[in-house]
């Protein structure tokens, strides 16, 4: 059980381990706690997130509203709004740089150590890690043309002239399959449809060739046929450019179609992480199982009754002892599940689950 022990160790890791992990992972998140200090109390949006993001793959993060999936992405970009802040933990970006002579150097940066407004962080945002949001209307500036906004992103991070940036912006729009890309450069966001706006957002995000793209529910506001177009586009671009995508959604259908690996989040923790195949065909955590059973499938034919998870996601101010899912869980073991948070256990290679059904080990919370 060496692998399991490795997972349960605290933040202190040997240099070799970090190096070994850095080979495959572009981002390593350890024990990340992002809390919001509100007048009503402390909302523990992220309460110990551990996550490895493999390089060049699509990692899906799935969960219900309030599970912390969006706060995870905001923490990575250091854009957590007040009164929230990162309380503890680390976010390690393993950045690869290609020197002119062809040698690749790698450096590891802890994003939590950087100041959100520091020049280093601002250089990483957009150039290294880019993000597309759910609502393309609210994330584009209504007062500037599409061309202006993409150009701004390019000029910030690349050493090119305005004319070149404008050309690049047009090329980017062409790449994302925008009809009449040169004309769209001159349009304002309100003149475009939802699908076109989302294409423009993707073009802007990709304009500086980031190594990580965070997509936070990019197709939720779109119609199914438009959604299918955008998913298709993102798959093509990913295969083309080979970038890493962190895809955040509550739609399990999209996860199955888009992702290589999946992390399931519940109340600020990753409760299960596996390859997309394992997650859908061999889910282990009771929450994952319940989630999969509760969605109606197109083509299931049988009019079976939907399994529902009883109760609701507890409000974020509540502190639940032990496994946060135990009040809603069918496999709840009194005296066990309500004591300590279950430690992560590897049930198969590359399949982690936090549940006492698979491991007896609990985790003493520190820093809480």
């Amino acid at each position, binding site marked *: 059980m060496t692998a399991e022990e490795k997972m349960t160790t605290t933040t202190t890791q040997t240099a070799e381990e970090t190096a070994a992990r850095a080979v495959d992972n572009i981002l390593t998140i350890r024990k990340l706690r992002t809390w919001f200090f509100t007048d009503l109390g402390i909302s523990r949006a992220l309460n110990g997130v551990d996550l490895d993001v493999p390089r060049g793959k699509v990692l899906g993060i799935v969960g219900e*509203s309030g599970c912390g999936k969006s706060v995870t992405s905001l923490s990575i970009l250091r854009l957590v709004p007040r009164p929230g802040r990162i309380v503890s933990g680390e976010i390690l970006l393993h950045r690869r740089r290609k020197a002119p002579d062809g040698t690749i150097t790698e450096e590891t940066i802890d994003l939590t150590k950087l100041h959100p407004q520091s020049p280093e962080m601002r250089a990483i945002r957009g150039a290294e890690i880019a993000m597309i949001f759910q609502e393309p209307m609210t994330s584009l500036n209504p007062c500037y043309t599409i061309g202006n906004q993409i150009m701004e992103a390019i000029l910030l991070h690349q050493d090119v002239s305005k004319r070149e940036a404008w050309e690049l912006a047009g090329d980017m729009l062409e790449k994302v399959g925008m009809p009449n890309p040169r004309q769209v450069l001159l349009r304002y966001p309100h003149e475009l449809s939802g699908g076109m706006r989302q294409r423009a957002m993707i073009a802007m995000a990709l304009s500086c060739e980031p190594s990580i793209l965070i997509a936070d529910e990019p197709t939720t506001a779109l119609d199914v046929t438009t959604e*299918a177009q955008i998913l298709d586009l993102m798959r093509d671009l990913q295969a083309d450019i080979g970038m890493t995508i962190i895809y955040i959604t509550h739609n399990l259908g999209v996860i199955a*179609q888009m992702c290589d690996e999946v992390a399931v989040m519940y109340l600020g923790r990753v409760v299960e992480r596996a390859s997309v195949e394992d997650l859908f065909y061999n889910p282990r955590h009771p929450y994952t199982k319940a989630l999969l059973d509760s969605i109606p499938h197109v083509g299931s*034919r049988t009019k079976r009754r939907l399994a529902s*998870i009883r109760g609701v*996601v507890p409000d974020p101010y509540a502190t639940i002892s032990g496994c946060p899912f135990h009040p809603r869980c069918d496999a709840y073991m009194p005296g066990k599940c309500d004591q300590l948070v279950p430690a992560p256990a590897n049930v198969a290679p590359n399949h982690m689950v936090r549940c006492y059904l698979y491991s007896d080990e609990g985790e003493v919370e520190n820093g809480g």
Partner: protein
Amino acid sequence: MAAETTQDNLLLDVKDLKKYFPIRSGLLRRVTGAVKAVDGVSFFIRDGETLGLVGESGCGKTTTGRTILRLLDPTGGTIRFKDPKLGWVDIDKMSREEMKAVRPNMQIIFQDPFSSLDPRMTVERIVSEPLVINKVASGQELKDRVADLLRRVGMRPEYMSRYPHAFSGGQRQRIGIARALALNPKLIVCDEPVSALDVSIQAQVLNLLEDLQEELKLTYLFIAHDLSVVEHISDRVAVMYVGHIVEMADTEALYYSPKHPYTEALMAAVPKPDPRRRERPIKLPGEVASPANPPSGCYFHPRCRYAKEICSKVMPELQEIEPDHFVACHFARELKLRGVVV
């Protein structure tokens, strides 16, 4: 020929329903055009069944639902409803006063449980309002009725004195359902009742709607854009595209052997929750046509991969090409289309 009423056991019969919204422009706000949100829609609902109404945003499905209830006044067409007491009534011709007699039998559940409940009213007042207005009950009897309704939708009657903000999305939707049930309606228009809810809560509400239908012999017009939810709950499904119904059939027939190219594309576009079945969706070029400025002929022809010359000239009628399977396509009989692959 539009859907003929040769069907028996009908509860609602809608023929050639139209709802246009005027476009005004210029200083004098003259009417310069119209958004044809619903443009000649015909369908029927049988007593006790669930008819799903699907389509992409802007196709007119919500407008159809609201016009049927006369929350919007139709521009043209007929809406006939079989009231349990009054018999067949023409909803489209009734005055506001006359509608009051029919309203108890036709109710609606709204999409957004956050804006459809008055934040300044307690749950008790929200649920009892229809009972008070229609003078069904008062005093202790009223309170008992409300408690009973809340129990029926799976909520504790003790919560009656709380305000909507104290409840989660799923619970609010239950309150909305309790309000719709208060007057024992026959028909409930469910306008995207679960699309604002989380997946686990969505299942709870869908199960509740199914249980209530069985218990109370309700008839639903279920408006949604999520095709898997509609398949789960509906007996029959109608597909709308830019103000028209393009296909209407039994759920099974529509999902597994669609006859309209748009239905085929919709089915293919749903992301299947199965990583072993990664299919490339059928490419639908372009965007949904604008109801203010629709294309000529069949509205779908600019995006249709089977379109021929006639499609750009003549608008196809909704025809019954198989028993209970209505399609509006010139080539519905010839095309071999692919439904959901299992």
